[in-house]
């Protein structure tokens, strides 16, 4: 075990898979000599050569489409979209095409590809370098969508994604890249896609979240110990397919649920989780299912005052938990 940052864990996952499987390739803008703008692919081109590590033109649609074509030929591409704000160009190839490959060929073809996408705010990225895109992706049947919160999960889930025979969108919260560090085995391991994890057991309220907000949720849960409120924290980790079973099992025990995410509230992952709880655990509820999410605004505003207003934080979560505890 070594303490690593999230970006180091992500790099390690790709490195291990590039070594283990000659079919694995990496492509994207600046992933070669530059090593990626976040250095996720640092030194890959030197080690694996420019036939496996491809600096592409600045053109996201073809990054996704070329990846799909590589997958058709039996290779296992890992594409990097430099910022989530640029992924829209690739939407046709991912939502329109890749998601329908297996279904549309009646199970004959598959599309083993991973698209890594840095996303999220809190980094002063403003309106066009901070977007949350998971709401537009998680409701696409045929895609798998992963959003890890920490280095250990990032490495294990990314390795699973690379080995998966389906198109997987791997969402990496930019603020976790260096701010979130943790112990990561130096050896190979995987974490199954589609399983949520109880990060902290509790009995009064289930806090359901993913990505960066998990860390604020954990802080809030610790703070509330002093108020005799026992909060269970559930990290979804995979947004499609959602782990209905673990969500329901937890909420049935606690009777209250607070769903937290930074993406805009309307139609977000939280809306689906709330519906799952309403349908599967209605009789166990002691309070309305509650959401604490990003506002319905286009994206993050630039000035720090406004950015703080958009983002979820420990204080906002603590307030919401106390209100729910008192219900």
């Amino acid at each position, binding site marked *: 075990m070594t303490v690593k940052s999230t970006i180091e864990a992500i790099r390690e996952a790709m490195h291990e898979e590039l070594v283990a499987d000659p079919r694995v390739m990496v492509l994207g803008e600046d992933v070669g000599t530059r090593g990626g703008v976040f250095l996720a692919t640092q030194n890959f081109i030197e080690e694996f050569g420019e036939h496996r590590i491809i600096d592409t033109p600045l053109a996201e649609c073809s990054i996704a489409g*070329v990846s799909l074509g590589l997958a058709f030929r039996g290779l296992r591409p890992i594409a990097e979209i430099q910022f989530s704000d640029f992924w829209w160009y690739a939407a046709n*190839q991912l939502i329109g095409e890749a998601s329908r490959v297996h279904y549309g060929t009646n199970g004959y073809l598959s599309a083993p590809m991973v698209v890594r996408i840095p996303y999220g705010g809190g980094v002063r990225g403003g309106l066009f370098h901070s977007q949350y895109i998971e709401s537009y992706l998680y409701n696409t049947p045929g895609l798998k969508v992963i959003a890890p919160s920490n280095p250990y999960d990032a490495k294990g889930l990314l390795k699973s994604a690379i080995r998966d025979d*389906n198109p997987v969108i791997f969402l990496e919260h930019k603020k976790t890249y260096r701010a979130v560090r943790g112990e990561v085995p130096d050896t190979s391991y995987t974490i199954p896609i589609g399983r949520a994890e109880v990060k902290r057991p509790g009995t009064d309220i289930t806090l359901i979240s993913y990505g960066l907000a998990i860390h604020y949720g954990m802080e809030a849960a610790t703070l509330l110990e002093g108020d005799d409120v026992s909060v269970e924290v559930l990290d979804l980790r995979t947004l499609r397919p959602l782990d209905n079973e673990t969500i329901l099992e937890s909420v049935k025990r606690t009777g209250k649920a607070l769903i937290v995410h930074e993406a805009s509230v309307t139609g977000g992952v939280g809306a689906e989780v709330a519906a799952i709880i309403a349908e599967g655990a209605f009789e166990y509820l002691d309070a309305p299912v509650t959401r604490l999410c990003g506002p319905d605004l286009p994206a993050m505003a630039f000035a720090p005052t406004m950015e703080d207003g958009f983002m979820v934080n420990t204080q906002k979560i603590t307030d919401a938990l106390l209100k729910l505890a008192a219900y």
Partner: protein
Amino acid sequence: MSPNGEKALSSTKAMPAHRRLGLTDDQLLGFYEQMALARIMDDRLIALNRQGKVPLVASCQGSEAASMGLALAAKTDGDCFLFPYYRDMPMKLVMGVSPLETMIGHIGKDGNTFNGGRQFLLQGASPNFPIIHLSNVVGSNLSQAVGYALGCKTLGEDTVVFVSFGDGGSSEGECHEAMNFAGVHKLPVVFCCYNNRLAISVPQEKQMAIENLADRAAGYGFPGVVVDGTDSLEVYRIAKEAIDRARDPSGGPTFLELKVERLKPHTSDDDDTRYRTPEDMEDSRRRDPLARLNAYLSDLGILTPAHDEQIFQESRAEVNRVTDAAENAPWPDASNLYGHLYAP
């Protein structure tokens, strides 16, 4: 090679064009028989559409020589992979897809190997053919074909990839991105643009400010060639050249602009009398690729009127047979709606 192409079929009786290209009389007759079959199949699909039995037809009439000439080059080469588009039913026939499977696929009955009734126009992919035709979102197949070619090159294979699309599709940003990528990596791809001068109803002059789409290839660093797409042998000849160029270490992609005609409306849902003049349609009919190949074979005495009549009779009988068989085939089980969403 000339846009209005009178030259290509020019040949002497002693050494006709097809023999110079290494095709025997019988091979070319077989090719003509397939084109006749494609025409009758297309007419039948349109008729079945009017009867409410085939929901959509994207007629191939007017682009058969392009679609089939490319396929003949690919098939005789033996190591080509195709990413066709929605007017390429004849391409699939040449590659060996049976008329029955074609008919079943268009009706949506059970038993096609491309999509199991999940898609129209026989889209999808089959383990039996070197073809991927995932969707009919125009332009989407270009970067996929480029990626496939990159994969072949990465694996050290000699496969050459063909991707076809229309003049309409050439306006998509995807087209630019794909050709640029292929140019950078000198990939073994043949970009085949069937230019019928109409994006449904929008004429070429409203789609682009140039006369020849092939001119664009220079911007991507590879050759663009204008081909008379109603001339089967010329398409075949240029396609073979493009295959050779794709495999040449100093070669790479080629852009073929196949000047074709659209003898029918865009699809069975379209009414082209709203935007085409009778004169324009008459001009198109004069460049009917089937009639052209017929004239070529007849001039050389390879095809007699009696033989021609026999070919059409047999094609009609075959299309009748597969129509009956497809109509009598079962529908896919409703449970096939589910399953195969994710690869295991």
